């Protein structure tokens, strides 16, 4: 009996020793800014990865984009931070200039991930000076959300095919009371969409990339901004500034149409809005910019764990994970070979995928001060015009001078 007990004890000891002697899994710290309905889906995919990977564990921390931005700055300065994080391409320029981003060329050169599965824009976005400085995460186009009941009430049966038709419909959908106060806006226009979506779609770039100069004081640009300002200040198709956000106004049935990405679908469904989406009508040049959230790998923290990261990237872009992501969030899949995926038919993702062939990008966001140009100078000038504090010419001439100053830091 004693010998049997001793044997059992020795076997248990051996098994325990074997388990603990096995090489431990490498842990990667992952900071994510996806806090909306996409959060649980991403968390589930990370959990599934952790369950299946024999070599890597991902510890994911989720925070709002503002907090992430703030924590990244502090972490880069302090020298401790995540092994990888997600963010839009607008920070590429500023972190590239600091030499803070890992070159991930090996992801493709080693054959771990095939570039051909991605739309061209996904491959093009993170490249600066010929180097891949971030890995693909997802891609999306903003589309126009519209309230079907309001369309029906206004007798609108066909969707607009160009900007002129869109603005004509927006005017038709705008309602005012007897005193002339707006009770329903036709189209919510956020400042960033005016410049990045509508004006750019019209073929007018705020910046001449070749000459590194602002174009906002050019007559064509001023005329276009004036047209948009008239739509807001005279025709009142949109609030001048929406402090609570256009999505809240759409949920409150205060606006009939507005632009947003796929993440808003869940909120509007919960709010009971009878809505659908359509592609933003193109301008004469049919230009637009798609959204490209990326995975960034800071040089400072990743070190030798890069192979573990590649394992995650390979897992992330695989079809089952992409299908799960698309179904759960409404984002299109990042793969161009999943267009006919049966499981995605009838989902929001399939509607947002309808624009997938048009995913485009440009390198303007790679400027170190792209954020300041859009979020401060153009926003400030637009607000001043809409609030009657300045003319289009004065506001954008001043903004143009400041933008030229920012463009020096390319």
């Amino acid at each position, binding site marked *: 009996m004693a010998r049997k007990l001793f044997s059992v004890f020795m076997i248990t000891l051996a098994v325990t020793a074997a388990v603990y002697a096995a090489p431990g899994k490498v842990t990667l710290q992952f900071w994510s800014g996806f806090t909306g309905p996409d959060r649980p889906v991403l968390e589930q995919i990370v959990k599934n990865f952790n369950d299946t990977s024999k070599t890597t564990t991902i510890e994911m921390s989720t925070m709002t984009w503002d907090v992430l931005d703030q924590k990244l*700055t502090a972490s880069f*300065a302090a020298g401790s931070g995540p092994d990888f994080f997600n963010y839009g391409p607008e920070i590429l320029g500023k972190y590239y200039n600091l030499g*803070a981003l890992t070159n991930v060329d090996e992801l493709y050169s080693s054959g771990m991930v095939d570039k051909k599965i991605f739309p061209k824009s996904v491959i093009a976005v993170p490249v600066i000076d010929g180097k891949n400085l971030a890995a693909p995460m997802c891609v999306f186009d903003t589309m126009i959300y519209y309230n079907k009941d309001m369309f029906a009430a206004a007798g609108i049966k066909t969707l607009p095919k160009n900007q002129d038709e869109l603005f004509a419909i927006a005017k038709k959908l705008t309602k005012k009371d007897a005193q002339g106060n707006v009770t329903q806006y036709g189209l919510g226009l956020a400042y960033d969409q005016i410049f990045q979506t509508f004006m750019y779609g019209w073929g007018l770039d705020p910046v001449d990339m070749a000459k590194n100069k602002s174009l906002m004081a050019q007559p064509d640009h001023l005329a276009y901004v004036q047209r948009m300002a008239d739509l807001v200040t005279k025709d009142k198709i949109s*609030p001048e500034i929406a402090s609570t956000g256009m999505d*809240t106004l759409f949920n409150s049935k205060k606006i009939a149409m507005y632009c947003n990405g796929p993440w808003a679908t869940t909120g509007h469904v919960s709010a009971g809005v009878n809505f659908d989406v359509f592609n933003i009508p193109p301008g004469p040049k049919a230009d637009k910019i798609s959204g490209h959230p990326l995975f960034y790998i800071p040089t400072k923290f990743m070190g030798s764990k890069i192979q573990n990261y590649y394992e995650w990237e390979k897992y992330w872009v695989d079809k089952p994970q992409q299908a799960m992501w698309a179904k759960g969030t409404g984002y299109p899949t990042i793969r161009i070979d999943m267009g006919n995926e049966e499981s995605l038919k009838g989902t929001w993702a399939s509607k947002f995928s309808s624009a997938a062939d048009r995913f485009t990008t440009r390198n303007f966001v790679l400027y170190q*001060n792209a954020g300041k140009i859009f979020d401060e100078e153009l926003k400030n000038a637009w607000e001043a015009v809409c*609030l009657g*504090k300045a003319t289009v010419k004065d506001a954008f001439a001043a903004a143009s001078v400041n933008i030229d100053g920012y463009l020096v830091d390319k």
Partner: protein
Amino acid sequence: MATNRTTAWNRLLNSQKGVAYLFIAPSLLIISFFVIIPMICSIVFSFLDFNIMFTKIKFAGFANFIKLFHDHRVKGALFNTFYFTIFEVPLQIIVALVIAVIIKNQSVMNTIFRGVYFIPVICSLTIVALVWEFLLDRDVGIVSFYLKQIGIHWGLLRDPDQAMPLVIIVTVWKNFGFSMVVFLAALQGIPQSLYEAASIDGIRAWDRLFKITIPMMLPTVGFCIITALTAAFQAFDQIYVMTGGGPIFRTETMVYYIYNMAFRTLKLPYASANAVVLFIIILAFSLFTFRRASAHDKDY
């Protein structure tokens, strides 16, 4: 050796000063770590030029300070900071003082009111600001809804002339409860004999307030002004949530601008120079207020 150490330790324990230093040592350590060292770092950074990876470190002299004096955004932010402080602090003190005097007597209703007025103080400023942002929204806010009922169509937070006054009102609503509680405690400390003597001399209630209550409370008022001033000069959360510094930068304060420079533009040395200037301003105002309040600190 061990005996020497024991003797030194005993000497420390036997001296009144030594024990005092031991008591304050833990908090001094924490304050040094989280306040004094970062403050010194900030002062040092303001004279340097570097990126957030701490590479290419160069001595910049006063370049960051010279730059900020030519920065129109700094001028605007300083103006907004003073605007906020000049209106928020007196309003907060006056509201707190008036309410403290009204509800100073012990009664069930006064106890309830004290609790109610103090509730905003214990709430998170971010959450309070979020709630007010919705209440004050021009299109979906309840304040705007009732204003429209009586024919007033204001832009509220979207109006550059109304945004800052509204932020000030929300801040006063959030903070006056703290000053009120301090004033209530100070009111209890005023000797009753002074009021009795005044009553015998036939002094009216109004005169009692201005000749006994307020003069007796001046040191406490001074303390409340210093804490309110410091908080007002550092206003950030409510602005960040309610207006984001807009419209057209009309609510952008110094701290908001410093945050923007440090965390969005990654210009840490320049942000540090701005922080040093703000520190000097707060220090000057606090010292001035402290000296004025101390001058009235008398024992009765």
